[in-house]
C-alpha cells in the first residue's frame, strides 16, 4: 500500500500523505472549508460540526476535520446541501451567542461574524430567550473571559492541555448550560496566554492588553520578526496608521521557527515603538541639537582620534546590515578597526530555554552579529558583569549601541552608569534612562518596526525585517547615520 492517497475535492485532484484528513487536503489545495474547532496546531476535536462536506458514497454529510482522506474519494464542499448544513450549524452556534459585537474586541476578526456574512445571513428562528452566562471574568493577568460568547469549540482547552500543558481550562456543565471556565481557584498563568485570545474564534477570550483600545479594522498589519529573544518568531505587527500608533503583535505561522504561537513577552514588543516611549531628538552635552549638527559633531569626534582609541560597545539587537555598515564606516574614516565590545545583561542566562519558544538569550541577533564579526575579522570582548576590559582599553571615544528592547536588560541602569564613566561617550538608542543624558552625545535610532534588515536566529535562520513608516521621520537607523558620515569624509584607508 502506498503512503500517498489521491482524492478529488470539487473535481480537483490532490495527493496527500495517507492518514491526512479531508480538511488538510482542502487546505493544501487552497479550498476553504469553514471551521471553528479545528486548528492546525492542535489535536482534532470534531465538536463544532461546522466543516461539513459531501463525500460521494456516504449517506450523510461528513466533517472534513476528522474524516481521513482515502484513495479515489470524491469530496464536494460547495453543493447546496453543504451550504445548507453550514447555515443550520451557524444558526445553532448563534442560539445563545449574545449580540454584543459593539463592545466585543473580537468584532472585525471574529470567525463567527465572518461566516455569518459568508454563509449565514438569515433571521433566527429561535423564539426562546438566550441563556445568560457569566461575562467579563478575570481569568488571569492577561485575559478576560466572556462565557456567553463562547461557542464551546474547545480550542483553548486543547491548547492548555497540549501546548503549555498547564490544563487550567475546562468545559463545565452540559447542554445549553455548558460553559468554559478555569478550574476552581486557578488562573491562567503562563507565558503563552495571549495565544488563547488568538485561537479563540469568537470573543470569549480577549486580551486585557488590547481591551477597548482600538477596533481591529483600523489596524494594518506588517509581517516582521519579533525582537524579543533569539528564537525570532515571525509576527504580524498591528499599527493604526492614522494615529501612527502600534497596538499589538500576533504570531505568524512558520513551521521552521515558531509554528503557530508566540510568547507573552514577545507580545509586549510594540510598547517601545510608540512615540510616548521614545526620544525624538539628539542631545549633545545636555543640549538638544538638530540631527545634522549632531552628525557633524560625531563625524569630527570620530576623525579626531585614531582607530585604536575608539571603543565600540555593541548589543546584539541591531541588524546584520547595521553592524557591517558601522564597521565599514569606521574603517574608512579612521583607517583601522576599533576595539569591539559586546554588552550583555548581567542577569542573562543565554542557554535557557522554556521548552516551547522563549530563549534565555533576549537579543534577537546574537548569531548574526557574531557572523558579521567573523567576516569583518573583528575580535570582540564580552562585557557582562565585568567592565574592566573597557575601562582599561584607553579609549578616547566610546560608541555605545544600546539595546532597543530595554526590558531585555533589567540591569541597564547600573550598566549605563558604568559606561558613562568613559571619556567621551556616544549613545545610540531610544532609552529614557537617566545616565543616558549624561553621555556626550545621545542619538535616537529607528526601532525594528521601521527598518529593513536581517536578524539571524539561534538556529542560523536569517529572516528579514519589514519597514513601516517611521514614527519620527527625522530619526534614522545607525547604518544610515554612519553611511552618511563616511560619505562626507575623506577616506583614510
Amino acid at each position, binding site marked *: 500500500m502506498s503512503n500517498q492517497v489521491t482524492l478529488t475535492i470539487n473535481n480537483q485532484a490532490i495527493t496527500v500523505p495517507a492518514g491526512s484528513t479531508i480538511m488538510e487536503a482542502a487546505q493544501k489545495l487552497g479550498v476553504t472549508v469553514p471551521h471553528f474547532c479545528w486548528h492546525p496546531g492542535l489535536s482534532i476535536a470534531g465538536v463544532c460540526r461546522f466543516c461539513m462536506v459531501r463525500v460521494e458514497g456516504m449517506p450523510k454529510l461528513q466533517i472534513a476535520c476528522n474524516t481521513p482522506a482515502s484513495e479515489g474519494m470524491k469530496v464536494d464542499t460547495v453543493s447546496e446541501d453543504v451550504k445548507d448544513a453550514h447555515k443550520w450549524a451557524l444558526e445553532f452556534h448563534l442560539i445563545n451567542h449574545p449580540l*454584543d*459585537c*459593539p*463592545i466585543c474586541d473580537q*468584532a472585525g476578526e471574529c470567525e463567527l461574524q465572518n461566516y455569518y456574512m459568508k454563509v449565514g445571513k438569515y433571521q433566527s428562528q429561535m423564539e426562546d430567550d438566550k441563556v*445568560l*452566562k*457569566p*461575562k*467579563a*471574568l*478575570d481569568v488571569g493577568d492577561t485575559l*478576560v473571559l466572556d462565557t*456567553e460568547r463562547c461557542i464551546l469549540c474547545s480550542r483553548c482547552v486543547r491548547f492548555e492541555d497540549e501546548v503549555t500543558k498547564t490544563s487550567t481550562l475546562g468545559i463545565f456543565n452540559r447542554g445549553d448550560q455548558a460553559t468554559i471556565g478555569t478550574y476552581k481557584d486557578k488562573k491562567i498563568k503562563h507565558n503563552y496566554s495571549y495565544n488563547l485570545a488568538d485561537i479563540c474564534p469568537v470573543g470569549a477570550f480577549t486580551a486585557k492588553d488590547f*481591551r*477597548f*483600545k482600538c*477596533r481591529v*479594522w*483600523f489596524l494594518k498589519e506588517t509581517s516582521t520578526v519579533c525582537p524579543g529573544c533569539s528564537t525570532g518568531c515571525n509576527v504580524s505587527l498591528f499599527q493604526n496608521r*492614522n494615529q501612527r500608533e502600534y497596538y499589538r503583535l500576533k504570531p505568524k505561522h512558520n513551521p521552521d521557527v515558531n509554528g503557530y504561537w508566540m510568547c507573552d513577552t514577545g507580545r509586549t514588543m510594540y510598547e517601545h515603538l510608540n512615540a510616548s516611549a521614545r526620544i525624538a531628538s539628539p542631545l549633545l552635552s545636555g543640549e538638544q541639537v538638530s540631527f545634522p549638527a549632531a552628525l557633524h559633531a560625531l563625524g569630527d569626534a570620530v576623525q579626531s582620534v585614531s582607530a585604536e582609541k575608539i571603543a565600540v560597545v555593541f548589543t546584539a539587537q541591531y541588524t546584520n546590515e547595521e553592524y557591517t555598515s558601522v564597521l565599514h564606516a569606521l574603517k574608512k574614516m579612521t583607517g583601522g578597526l576599533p576595539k569591539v565590545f559586546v554588552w550583555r545583561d548581567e542577569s542573562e542566562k543565554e542557554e535557557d530555554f522554556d521548552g516551547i519558544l522563549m530563549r534565555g538569550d533576549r537579543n534577537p541577533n546574537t548569531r548574526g552579529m557574531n557572523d558579521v564579526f567573523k567576516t569583518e575579522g573583528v575580535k570582540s570582548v564580552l562585557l557582562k558583569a565585568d567592565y574592566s576590559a573597557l575601562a582599561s582599553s584607553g579609549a578616547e571615544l566610546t560608541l555605545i549601541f544600546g539595546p532597543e528592547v530595554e526590558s531585555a536588560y533589567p540591569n541597564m541602569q547600573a550598566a549605563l552608569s558604568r559606561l558613562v564613566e568613559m571619556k567621551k561617550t556616544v549613545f545610540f538608542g531610544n532609552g529614557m534612562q537617566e545616565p543616558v543624558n549624561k553621555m556626550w552625545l545621545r542619538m535616537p535610532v529607528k526601532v525594528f518596526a521601521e527598518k529593513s534588515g536581517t536578524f539571524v536566529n539561534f538556529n542560523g535562520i536569517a529572516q528579514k525585517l519589514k519597514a513601516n513608516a517611521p514614527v519620527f521621520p527625522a530619526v534614522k537607523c545607525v547604518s544610515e547615520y554612519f553611511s552618511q558620515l563616511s560619505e562626507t569624509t575623506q577616506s583614510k584607508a
Partner: protein
Amino acid sequence: MAYVNVSRDPERNFKNGYLATSLVGMGTTLVTFAKQVFGLEESATVQWPEVEYQYSERFKGAHFLTKRPDGRVRCTACFLCATNCPAQCITIVAGESSDKGVEKFPVRFEIDILRCVFCGYCEEACPVDAIRMGPEYSMAGLAEQKWVYTKDHLLERDAVKRKLGEKQVSKKDENTKHETVESSLPGIHADHSHSGH
C-alpha cells in the same frame, strides 16, 4: 458658409423688455405688501432670531448623544460612527465602565464640527441609537470658539434640552447585562452608584 442670424431675439418686444417686467414685478410686490398691511395675507418671513422657525421633527441638525433612562450616556463606544464617518471627524476613546451592566463606554467622544459634512451616516451606523442629528440649526460662532464638540457638550446641550426634553432619552431596548449575570473584573461594581460616568 452657413450662419445663424442672432442679431435680434425673436421674443424681443416691449412686453418682455426691461421696463415692463420691472413694473410688473413691482406691482406684485406692492399688491402683496398691501395685502399684508391690511391683514389679508400672512407674511412668509420669520423674524429670526426673535422668532424661531420650526423645522419638522426629522430635521437633521447638530449632533447630540442620547441618554439612558438614568441619565448616563447611551453610547457603548463601538466606533461604528467613527468608522462610517466620511469626514473622519469623530474621535472616540473607549474605556472600561465600572458599572457591571455596561462594560464599555466612551471616555471621550468628540466631533470636530468644522470637518463634519452633516451626512447623517453616524446616526445610521449607530447600533444603539446613541448619536442623533438634532433640531439645532444655528451653529454660527466666532473663530476662537471651541469647534470640537466634547462628550459633555453633546450630552447636555441647551438647544437639545429645550426642544427635545425627554426625547433625548433613547427608547430603544437597554443594552445592559442582566442583573443576574456574574462579572469579576477588578473595578466593576454591581450597583450603579459607583458608575463614575
